[in-house]
């Protein structure tokens, strides 16, 4: 069938700069560029271009630009270009439109309507370069009361304490499975988490056996509906175990890792036959209620001898506060919430763009509800869903989060340009692919350094902002909404966020 789609991008080549080195041809995973021997000229099949900018970055003479394609349909507020294109693609295939990464629609980004406080005159600010500043965060259930026993100069804790995991900065890497991303990208996250003293999350693709001893103590391992790669050793080698109920990019639906991506090594890690679809059912079939969830939480605690915190990850949906309360009552030590803008390796676009609520509102609602019920201390709250910078992280902590998961930001640090084509498995940056020619573009030594640099930069910025507030420990800003003010928000939004308007 002849395709009526317009190209998404246009490739502009400045002939006066092009030296026919053919770097663009080798770098492109979509086969856009090609060299005509007879004419000694480069040509571009721009309808294939996904706009990942790999060729532009690698062109040694700066001869290339890739831009959104200038041809347009008649402007129409209702029938946007995207609607046209998706509609035509579906008319040609009859399929569900897939996409990757997070929701790109213009829903309000509340982080951009919240501002932080700083000390002026009445409270001295602190300079983190010379004074101690504490970002260390403990994830897990805290005791109801703290009873101490003092004997001479020895102090010991009498209360029963629950297992906690220590991270050196309130930022961990979101769940991204080996299979969704390449081994190299997966390993880069693990190496960076280990070096910086934080955690990465295996997603539901398992943890390769050769990584368990070294990186297990820095991993949150997922137990999801497909139970891929879950065996007793996997659970016991980890820092924490996470039950995945939902994901912000696709609340309520499962996942399909297509058979062509299930290579020998992925098959071994997921513990399924090579080449079969890895189907993650939408629900966990042993969980149809909070009581059932409780049963799995304690099954995992039993399987790990009550030595590890158990997290439950849900997508932010309408009744998220009540659900989170149920999760805490069910015995979870960590509640992880993934918002509307959370990323994915593959999801139906209609779900990604229309289901779920923004993480800012979900977080504020959950934190408030748990406080009102007197159970906030029984869990840590981890939030995810499109965190772009350190200010987003700090604002989230002021809204009540214990720590933040970053996924897209970490991928961008490794090279990702959010071209949203993760589901094709042809990532030119070597991240979301299992093609050895492409995945070797990620060198874990270098990519992990980029990630560590990112964590270092963000952590330093958080310290600067904390210092400006006159606060020297991240604990003191947790749930401290007095340090936030809203700008340009409606009353109901301020009410849900529990934040005053600027000037109030």
């Amino acid at each position, binding site marked *: 069938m002849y395709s009526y789609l317009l190209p998404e991008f246009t490739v502009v080549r400045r002939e006066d700069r092009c030296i026919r080195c053919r770097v663009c041809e080798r770098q492109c995973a979509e086969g856009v560029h090609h060299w005509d021997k007879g004419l000694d000229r480069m040509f571009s099949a721009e309808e294939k271009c996904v706009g990942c900018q790999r060729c532009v970055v690698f062109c040694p003479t700066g001869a290339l630009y890739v831009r959104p394609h200038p041809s347009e349909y008649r402007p129409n507020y209702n029938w946007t270009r995207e609607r046209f294109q998706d509609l035509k*693609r*579906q008319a*040609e*295939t*009859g*399929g*569900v*439109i*897939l996409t990757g990464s997070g929701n790109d629609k213009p829903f309000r980004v509340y982080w951009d309507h919240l501002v932080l406080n700083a000390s002026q005159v009445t409270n001295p600010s602190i300079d983190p370069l010379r004074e101690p500043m504490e970002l260390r965060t403990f994830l897990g259930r805290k005791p*109801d009361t703290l009873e101490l026993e003092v004997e001479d100069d020895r102090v010991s804790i009498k209360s029963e304490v629950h297992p906690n995991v220590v991270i050196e900065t309130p930022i961990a890497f979101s769940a991204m499975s080996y299979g969704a991303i390449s081994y190299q990208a997966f390993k880069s996250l693990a190496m960076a988490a280990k070096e910086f003293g934080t955690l990465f999350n295996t997603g539901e693709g398992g943890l390769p056996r050769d990584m368990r001893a070294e990186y297990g103590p820095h991993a949150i391992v997922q*137990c999801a509906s*497909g*139970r891929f790669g*879950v*065996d*007793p*050793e996997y*659970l*016991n080698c980890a820092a924490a175990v996470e039950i995945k109920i939902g994901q912000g990019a696709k609340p309520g639906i499962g996942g*399909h890792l*297509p*058979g062509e991506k299930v290579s020998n090594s992925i*098959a*071994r890690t*997921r*513990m*399924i*036959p090579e*080449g*079969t*679809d890895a*189907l993650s*059912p939408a629900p966990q*079939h*042993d969980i149809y209620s909070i009581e059932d969830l*409780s*049963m799995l939480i*304690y*099954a*995992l605690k*039993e*399987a*790990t*001898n*009550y030595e590890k915190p158990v997290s439950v990850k849900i997508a932010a949906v309408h009744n998220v506060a009540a659900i989170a309360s149920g999760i805490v*009552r069910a*015995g979870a030590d960590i509640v992880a919430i993934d918002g509307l803008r959370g990323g994915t390796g593959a999801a139906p676009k209609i779900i990604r763009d229309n289901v779920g609520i923004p993480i800012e509102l979900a977080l504020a609602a959950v934190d408030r509800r748990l406080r009102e*019920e*007197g*159970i906030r201390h029984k869990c840590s709250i981890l939030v995810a869903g499109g965190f772009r910078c350190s200010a987003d992280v700090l604002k989230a902590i002021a809204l009540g989060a214990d720590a933040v998961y970053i996924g897209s930001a970490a991928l961008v640090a490794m090279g990702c340009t959010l071209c949203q084509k993760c*589901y*094709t498995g042809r990532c030119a940056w070597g991240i979301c692919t299992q093609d050895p020619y492409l995945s070797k573009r990620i060198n874990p030594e270098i990519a992990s350094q980029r990630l560590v640099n990112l964590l270092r930069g963000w952590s330093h910025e958080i310290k600067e902002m904390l210092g400006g507030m006159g606060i020297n420990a991240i604990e003191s800003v947790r749930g401290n909404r007095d340090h936030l003010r809203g700008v340009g928000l409606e009353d109901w939004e301020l009410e849900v966020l529990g934040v005053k308007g600027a000037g109030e």
Partner: protein
Amino acid sequence: MATVSARLGLRDMFMDGVRPVRELLPRLYLNGQTAEIDGADLKHKELNDLVREAAFKGARKIVLRNIYGQRYIGTRLYLPTRVEIEVHSHPGNDLGAFLNGHRITVYGNAQDGVGNTMDDGEIVVHGRAGDIVAMSMRGGKIFIRDNVGYRTAIHMKEYTGKVPVLVIGGTAQDFFGEYMAGGIVILLGLGLGEHERHRAHYIGTGMHGGVIYLRGRVEPYQLGKEVGVLDLDENDWQIVRWYVDEYAAHFGTDADRILAGKFQKLLPVSRRPYGKIYAY
């Protein structure tokens, strides 16, 4: 604390009032390599603490008496040694969940989640079992003497020669073998009358790996659209005979009488049932 929690509606159904294992040790009778535990009134964590304690003290066979609904029996044994557990009479949910190679025999009925995500070992139930038996099981063997509940063998899987086996003497409820990605499931239908069909609908729906051997009558409309029906070949008969013999040995029935019945083989029609629903 428990009172305060109860007042706030915070009763912890698993952990409230759990006694430390040292207080419970009198319930553990150890005789060489055999241990016996009286499970009356024990919470699941207390019972499993004692089972673990027994294993640490060198017990290789652990007999549990007065078991009424305690969950996760066998789950807490991520240990290098293998033990044998005998359960009298009625274990609770998630019997042998994440089981790490141990052997569990139940003299009574089991509830939901038998062998949930079990890794290796053997579970033999002299009675019936509830829903999601062998859910996501990836290794070892389960034998259930009588009937099982809904969604049995859901998402069982196999890899590199590690093939889980589930043999059920009776019949199963709906969504039997749903999402199966591997493993061998044998449903014998022994309790059914001569012309009675199996009860389950949506058998093997979403199945994309493994095999189901089904003895007795089943109509095409009871099957999921992802499975095809075949006759057994010589290799299949070998497998079926092997495990039916094992079943008969466990429960003292006549293997030949079982094997004389009509068997069919259900196989997935595709390893990729949902490969074509997306627009790339």
